[in-house]
Each structure stands twice: as C-alpha cells, then as structure tokens.
C-alpha cells in the first residue's frame, strides 16, 4: 500500500484511463474522489465496485469547465475525505476534424475541458497543497502533443499546453514539496479511441513497437508511481507511456 490514507481526486474518473487510475490509487490505499460529467451509470458502478472491495471512494458530478462548480466540488471532497494530496487532471475530450472544417465550438470545447479543466482543479487545490508542504499534481497529456495526427489541432494544442503548464507550475511549487508531472499516453484502448481503432486499428498496432495497444492500467501504474513517495524528487516531467509509438520507428 504505497498511498495509504492519502486523499486523491481524479477528474474524468468514471471511464477510460481515469477509471483505471481511480482503481489503482484505491488499490494502493488512497481515499479516492472522482469526478464525472455525464456517465452516472459508469460512475455508480465504479463506486459500488470499490466500496464493496472495502475502499473509500466518492463519486461527484461536476462540469470541469465551471470554476465555481469545481471549487464547490473540491470543498465537498475536503469535508468528507480530508485535504487533497493527489490531484489527477484526467478529464479530456476529442472533437477531431480537419482544421479547415473545424468550428470554433470544437476548438473551445476541447481547450476548455482539457486545459481549462486542468486549470480549474489545480487552482482549487494548489494553495492547500502548498500549505501542507506536500502534494502531487498529475496531468494526463498525450503523445499527440508532440507526435500529432491530422484532425487534431485542437487536441494537440490542449495537450501541448498541458505539458508547458506542467513545467511552469512545477517551478513555482517545487520549494513547497508539491510535484507537478504529466503522463503522455500513447494509443490506449478506451471509448475515446474507439472510432479511430475501428478505422485503423491494425495500422496503429504496426506502428507500436510493442505491437499492442495500451490499456488504462498501463497508464494507471505510471500515475501511482508519480503519486507515491518513490517519485518525490521528480517534477516538471512528461512521462511517456506508449509502448514506444512516439519513437517513430518504421513499421516492421
């Protein structure tokens, strides 16, 4: 139990990578609050599963783009579970389209959720972490920040910004024992990547040196590491977890 009695908050926790992170943090002994937007069923089933396993878990519905709602949500968690030690900014969406066709609403939705949501939750917990002189902020980025695909100008911009934000904030909070890191997953088998997988799953697999798609658990293990004391001297880094896809090797 590497995270015994730590209090963690994971955004976008009901499905996909976030769900895996919630489970992994809880399995290491953390009390975990997770945020979901629309997937109440998935959230309830996850909460029930973990409660049954004897974990402390709390599911909260919240729009990560709404700063006031986020503040209230963090206060609720602090009251029920205690001060938050670990924040995982995972909530993310895609609205892929070629740039020429991309609408302002697609641009704004992706930036506001992926980057704005990260800002809102970080803002709501950073001072309290600073006062406790201990905290872990883990932002879920993407290899798409650096190795992007057509149709993802908005997504790539949001993830590139998250990487820069991670480094800049790390510098400000380092002296207070708060580390800020990012994880850049490659191609992970989740609902978000379903459409692309259906279209080009075989080609993608050939591009991955490890010849398999990532699983939520692959990312969750990296998150547990960054949240643990083992990573206490690591800050401002983007940890790539992608089976080697970003190495850019030619398909064999």
């Amino acid at each position, binding site marked *: 139990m590497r995270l015994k009695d730590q209090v963690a908050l994971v955004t976008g926790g009901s499905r996909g990578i976030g769900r895996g992170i919630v489970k992994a943090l809880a399995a290491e002994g953390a009390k975990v609050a997770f945020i979901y937007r629309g997937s109440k069923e998935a959230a309830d089933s996850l909460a029930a599963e973990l409660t049954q396993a004897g974990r402390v878990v709390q599911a909260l519905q919240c729009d990560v783009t709404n700063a006031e709602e986020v503040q209230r949500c963090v206060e609720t968690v602090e009251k029920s579970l205690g001060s938050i030690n670990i924040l995982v900014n995972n909530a993310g969406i895609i609205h892929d389209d070629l740039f020429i066709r991309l609408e302002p609403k697609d641009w704004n939705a992706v930036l506001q959720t992926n980057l704005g949501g990260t800002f809102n939750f970080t803002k709501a917990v950073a*001072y309290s972490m*600073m*006062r406790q*002189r201990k905290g872990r902020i883990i932002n879920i980025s993407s290899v798409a920040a650096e190795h992007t695909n057509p149709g993802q100008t908005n997504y790539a911009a949001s993830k590139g910004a998250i990487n820069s934000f991670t480094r800049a904030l790390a510098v*400000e*909070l380092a*002296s*207070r024992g708060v580390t800020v890191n990012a994880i850049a997953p490659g191609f992970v088998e989740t609902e978000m990547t379903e459409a692309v997988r259906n279209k080009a799953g075989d080609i993608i697999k050939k591009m991955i040196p490890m010849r398999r798609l990532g699983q939520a658990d692959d990312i969750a293990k990296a998150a547990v590491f960054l949240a643990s004391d083992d990573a206490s001297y690591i800050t401002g880094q983007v940890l790539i977890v992608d089976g080697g896809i970003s190495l850019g090797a030619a398909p064999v």
Partner: protein
Amino acid sequence: MPNRDEIYAKVSSTLQEALNVDEEEVKPESTLQGDLGAESIDFLDIVFRLEREFGIKIPRGELFPESIFQGDPDFVQNGKVTDRGIAELKTRMPFADLSKFEQNPEVAGISDLFTVEMITNYIQGKLDGKN
C-alpha cells in the same frame, strides 16, 4: 483588539508556519529574505495567512510593494535610491523603519526592510485603521 505583543506573537507563528522556521529564528529584526529564507511565493503565502489570521484584507502590493521602483529613473539612479525614491518609500511604507537604509540606500538593500517588526507595525496600523 490585540495588543502589540499579541500581534507580534501571531505574526511570528504565522511566519514559522509559512517559512518552516523555528521560533528561535524569528526575531523582530529578522529579515524575511536574508534571515528567514523567504522566496517570492512565500511572500504571497504570508499575505494569505496574515489575512486569514487577523481577519483583514491586504491589497496587492500594500505590505510588500516589491515593484516600487521597477525601472523608474526618478527613484533609482546607479543602483541607489534617490531622495525622491526615499520619500516615495516613506509614503508607501510608513510602517517600515528606513533609518538604516537611508545611510546606504542601495536598491539591493530594499529587501532588508522587510522584517518581522515591519509586518507587526503594518498589522498594528491596519487594525488601528490607519493604513
């Protein structure tokens, strides 16, 4: 209304928490940066904590007017604060003791004005409704 000793004690404990220093290290004449190791983010934290501790509002730049002379040649010449600059400091920081600084008004020495006593003076004035 707390008396001066009570204010000082609260300021001292606030600084101990914010800067992670021991009670013995905090003396009235201790400078925040030089003696107590404060960095820029600490100044912000100290302001937040003092606001909470004393139930007051500290407008940005009032207690720590760091940027007071940034790039203004009227106030600074050749790394030294001019007479006009010192007058400005006195107006902006009536709670600071400038007597030593006036003898050798180097810009680099401004940070030494930020002492535990200075904060105590500031809070006392604030609670008296003077500032």
